[in-house]
């Protein structure tokens, strides 16, 4: 599991290092257009100044270079960009500083959209999505926590079972209508 997760959060550096030569066949000239379709505007105007990488709080912890990903998008290196980009916290600090007025955070979101549509869904996203459909929240409710809460004289997290069921049903209806479940690949048995 840990190995698989690593692929989805690590930066481009290692991936690029494996392919010594980028072949023209690997480039998708329409990639920037596709990104624009999913909300990532002005990708081609990036000056590659690196300001986004410098201000990115994630980049200080792991090998994740915002600028590098944008460059791959400009270049049409689709295959490198889709596996990753789930670490972006969308804090928009990159957008705040970008002199070219593009929004790297929204490019990351667009990349996630494209990745999911290509069937590339990291396990942790699948788990969170499954939880959302199942319990109405992306984190699985833990009975232990409720036990502690009761001991402390607090109500359990979901005291109002009736309301919770209504909420979950609402989510499931929406999920079904938007074909979100199929997109993410949530199993049938998950449903109530």
């Amino acid at each position, binding site marked *: 599991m840990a190995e698989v997760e690593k692929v989805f959060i690590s930066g481009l*550096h290692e991936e690029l290092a494996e392919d010594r030569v980028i072949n023209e066949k690997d480039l998708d000239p329409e990639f920037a257009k596709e990104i624009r379709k999913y909300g990532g505007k002005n990708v081609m105007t990036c*000056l*590659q100044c*690196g*300001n986004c990488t*410098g201000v990115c709080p994630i980049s200080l912890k792991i090998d994740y*270079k915002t600028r590098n990903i944008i460059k791959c998008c400009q270049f049409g290196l689709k295959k490198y960009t889709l596996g990753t980009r789930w670490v972006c916290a969308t804090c928009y600090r990159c957008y705040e500083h970008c*002199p070219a007025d593009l929004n790297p955070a929204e490019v990351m979101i667009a990349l996630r959209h494209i990745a999911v549509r290509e069937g590339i869904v990291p396990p942790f996203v699948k788990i969170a999505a499954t939880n959302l459909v199942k319990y109405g929240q992306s984190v699985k409710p833990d009975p232990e926590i409720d036990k502690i809460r009761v001991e402390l004289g607090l109500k359990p997290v979901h005291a109002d079972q009736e309301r919770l069921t209504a909420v979950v049903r609402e989510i499931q209806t929406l999920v079904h209508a938007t074909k979100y479940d199929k997109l993410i690949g949530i199993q049938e048995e998950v449903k109530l």
Partner: protein
Amino acid sequence: MTEPAPQDKTVTKDTSAEPDGGRKAPRVGVFVCDCGSNIAGVVDCGKVREAAEKLGDVVVAKENKYTCSDVGQAEIIKAIKEHGIERVVVAACSPRLHEPTFRNCIQQAGLNPYLLHMVNIREQCSWVHGHEKAKATKKALELVKMGVSKAARLEPLEAREVPVEPSSLVVGGGVAGIQAALDLANMGFKVYMVEKEPSIGGKMAMLDKTFPTGDCAICILAPKMVELSRHPNITLLSYSEVEEVKGYIGNFEVKVRKKARYVHEELCVGCGVCADACPVKVDNEFDLGFGQRKAIYVPFPQAVPLRYTIDKEHCIHFKSGKCLLCAKACANNAIDHKMKDEIVNLKVGTIIVATGYETYVPLRKGVYKYWECDNVITGLELERLLNASGPTGGHLVRPSDGKRPEKIAFIQCVGSRNKKIDRNYCSRVCCMYAIKNAQIIMEHEPNTEISVYYNDIRAFGKGFEELYHRVREEYAVEFIRGRPAKLKEDPTTKRITIRAEETLLNMITEREFDLVVLSTGLIPSEGSKSIGKTLGLTTTPDGFFAEAHPKLRPVETALDGVYVAGCAQGPKDIPDSVAQAKAAASSAAAPMFAKKVTIEPLTASVDEDLCVGCGLCVELCPYGAPELVTVEKGGTKARIIEALCHGCGTCAASCPQKAITCKQFTDEQIYSEIFAALGAEDKKGEGRKKAEAGVS
């Protein structure tokens, strides 16, 4: 322009004088231009020609590959003579490009040059509708139909010639203004130079050395400043501002406010005894706050004119009515605290605007902490700190403690190429001045470590790349490709840590520096804004003055007789500023040598029977052309001073009585175009009346 030649014999009908109702149809010729594939590649010109031929009034329609070519023009002349054409419609490019060509052409054939109408089927049709060929053709057809309808109603006009005053006003005394003034004066024209500061010299006087050759800026500028001040043909109005400009090419009337400097220029000898006596010390603007001056001062030792000026804001006398130590010290009695502003009226033929630039001021709460940290300075401040006549005598020190900085960082593109702050353009000089200053610092102190944070290095000029190469090779100046993301000041050492991605290494770097220099970009000056408003000059989106044509008319403005030079037109270095100044001087000299210019007759005129003398036009006209006059019959009427009228149409559009008509844009002509577009006939002006009722 010469008188139109007598008309050809085949042209027999003279219809222009007939009133609308009984209008005899003039014979119209239509010439459709392919413009190679520029138009024909999109618009089906053959179809346009065929359709034009079928229009009423049209007696001949021709299609040409290039109507502006000799062949195309010859065909127009031939058609006019053979078919007795009285009005010519050319469906081609923008009238801004070839209207003069075709006016000359039809004049050669004996027609009045103003009986031409150009239909723009290139810029307004083929170029903008490249993907919709059928629709573009349809639009071209409609435009031609409108043009023919208007052309049939054109009336002959006579161009006027006006004399040109052989004198010039140069606004701004920087290097561009100085060069333009000297060139014009050397050609024998009278030149008035207006500079708002107490001394000429501009920004160049503040610089230390110039790139790429390393000449001392003031050493090469001062001789020119002195030459200007001593030139018999130049009147220098320093500490003055242009307040009002009236008139037109050849005949501008300029009102200049000569601000009171409280020192008589003709008595002051610039000895400086007054400044020694003055007890007030304030920051010197010329040193950007690093050095100090007295309340009575010259901004720098080489100032021209070397005449002292009292800074009213800080002078004790203007606060308490006391002191007067300077006046007591002055042996020539040159100081006069009661001096008043003076208005000087000038009459000039041409104007050169050389109002220069200002440097971008970093944001108050910006990333680069210019306002928070002492050791973050701008490029121009560094110039003063490096300058031998600057506040430190040329010794580079850290502003926080006066010690020598050992590690220096330059940050490029501050206030340039940044869409977030609406500064999209490249300021052109920052790369080179940073490289030049790096070289100077390394020459002074070879043990310094210099890093330049850049996005792209633009070393495009003569000798620039060589200098860039030298500072890397000889002085080992380090270039880091990346825009700094964060600056952090150590509260005790006052050193600055810069975090940036070295994009070429794909690594985030954090490094500490003693001094950080922000290579700030160039922005339009306040002086430019005010003179731009006074003259009504247009600017490009970046705020710099727009030239008449970006390639072919680089120093002319949209206003005849007004030229632009130097950084007022856009960021540029000294060689480019000087070259442009020389170009502006030569362009301004042309009409002054010719002693006369031709003025377009497309002006407004007033029907005094309809005018009620309300004066709305007088208030609205941006050029002061209409005036109210008392007529013999009694009452006041508006009258247009034709020489001042630019034919903009503001008065005609706003006149509540519809008493004002704009020649070649009469209501009748415009309505006929509208009706042609709508496919309606405007017989006997009925439609026009209906439309007016509908519109109003």
